[in-house]
């Protein structure tokens, strides 16, 4: 392997040139030259325990497992990109898959005769809630995600030092670089990606609009819309206790796609 050819090729370990590109190394290494050379840890007998541990971890069957095939698929990579760049939409997507598909399916499968009606109502409720959440988040967060990406792609423009001139051109305001705040030498994509403070505040800024600001209004909108969705989409209506039994099979277009055993159920319990 080429790595070894570089590692063991002693001709490459030429010591320090007087005009070495790594100026700081010259400064730091003043007292190190007489110590063990930098190559020792990487050249056999002097290898550290950690290095040999790392070397021992080898993915021998790389590319052969089902997981590897999934990792190599473009669709999976696109999905992962959505999770990082559109976290809020991704969150709604997970909710849609879990609360809108998996949970109702499990509830329906586990329901016995007594609580079939409740499960049906809960399933329709969960699906409606997940769909509303996904649609609202996707629409509201789209421009926020685009803005987020703008800063991610060009952080210097937004987080570096700059002078802001007012619209009338009379006042000037100097904005300091945020390098110190993010504990980096300078504002740059690579430096920021390694900064934990930046990563933390970035995630907060990204998730605040939906989780904190929109969270409660979205939940209230869901509560307000759900009865109509249940009625007109699923053909379900909550009825007071002891209400006369009514056939729901004709209401709601989804009933057309449901098995008779499910669509024939009647409302009127305390399902919530």
């Amino acid at each position, binding site marked *: 392997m080429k790595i070894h050819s570089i590692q063991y090729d002693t001709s490459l370990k030429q010591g320090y040139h007087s005009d070495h590109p790594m100026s700081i190394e010259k400064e730091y290494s003043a007292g190190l030259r007489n110590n063990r050379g930098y190559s020792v840890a990487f050249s056999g007998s002097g290898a550290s325990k950690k290095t040999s541990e790392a*070397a021992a971890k080898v993915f021998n069957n790389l590319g052969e497992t089902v997981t590897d095939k999934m990792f190599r698929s473009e669709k999976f990579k696109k999905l992962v990109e959505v999770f990082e760049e559109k976290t809020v939409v991704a969150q709604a997507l997970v909710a849609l898959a879990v609360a809108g598909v998996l949970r109702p399916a499990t509830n329906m499968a586990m329901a016995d005769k007594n609580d079939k009606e409740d499960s049906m109502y809960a399933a329709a409720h969960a699906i409606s809630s997940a769909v509303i959440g996904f649609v609202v988040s996707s629409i509201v967060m789209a421009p926020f995600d685009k803005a987020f990406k703008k800063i991610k792609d060009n952080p210097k423009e937004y987080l570096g030092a700059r002078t802001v001139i007012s619209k009338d051109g009379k006042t000037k305001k100097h904005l300091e670089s945020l390098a110190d705040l993010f504990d980096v030498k300078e504002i740059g994509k690579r430096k920021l990606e390694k900064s934990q403070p930046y990563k933390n*505040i970035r995630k907060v800024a990204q998730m605040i609009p939906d989780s*904190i600001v929109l*969270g409660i209004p979205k939940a209230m909108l869901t509560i307000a819309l759900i009865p109509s969705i249940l009625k007109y989409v699923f053909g379900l209506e909550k009825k007071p206790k002891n209400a006369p039994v009514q056939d729901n099979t004709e209401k709601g277009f989804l009933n057309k796609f449901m098995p008779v055993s499910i669509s024939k159920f009647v409302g009127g319990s305390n399902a919530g």
Partner: protein
Amino acid sequence: MQVNLQTANINNNSYRPAQQPAFTGAPRIHSKLFDPVKKQYDNLAEGIARNYYEKFYRSKFAKKFIDKTKNVKNMTTHMSAIGATLISGMYTVRTLQNDKLDPEKRKTLALNDVMTWAISTAGSYFLDNKLGDWCNKVTTRFVANYVATKPEAKNIELLGDWDPKKIYKIIEDAPQIAYDKITEMKSKLSPEEFSKWLGKARINEDDLTDISDQLLYKKYLKQKKALSKNPEKLKEWIKNAGTSEEILTKISKSVTKNVLDLNLDFLRDKRLTTLIDGIGVLKSLFVFGMVYRYIVPVLVMKPANKIGAYLHQKNAEKEQAANKAA
């Protein structure tokens, strides 16, 4: 070499698909119909970037927040928990204020909401934490696969044609390999050629300092281990090395420790950075989604509802008995 084999295959007509669509050469027509809308949308995004994100990052809150969360690692998890807490709180308050329910049932349902939230939050944090190491391994394997299918991501110019199967080794060795290669090229090439080569190797002058720093830190770790019983000698070593503990602490934060660092420091593949971060987010959101919306509601809510209904019935019976007695 693989490149030659592939090149040979490409040049051999027999390997070409039988019905390869011919490129007509017709240029794609760009519709201007949506240009004003796109411009408006772009302006909206720019406004949000300047007036929300930038102002937020420059706010006093951000400064205080950063100061208090320096050692916090997984912010996605905490933000998910805060969002869930707000919504659960709202549902609990609404349940307690619901006049259509009798007071006893209100309490039972509210307790149910609180219990679901508490168990879900504790469960999510527990699972998210437990899956941390597993997720790191999965991410490393993901990167190995990424590099295996995209050889240009290896940065062969700087690190050589390394084997993605041995990605753990390259994480460990990359600073040294890069250093050796830079030293070799520096001695071989003229300053202009060397500068051009640095661009090809995806590094700049600043990075040279970073690589040296990393090597210095590795030496320091070795010394620290060897001189663990002799701190005075270690201090002397640090002084002789022309550095200080403060500098070393700062360097320790930027040492290549995992695949994210490997990519940021040496591979420099922009998409890979997003993908690596994305896997961590995917894990956290999936754990929270599953626990909050599936595991707890399905496995905990149902029994809790049954217990609630049982208690409600018992209380009603007691009340009835008391009324009769009166």
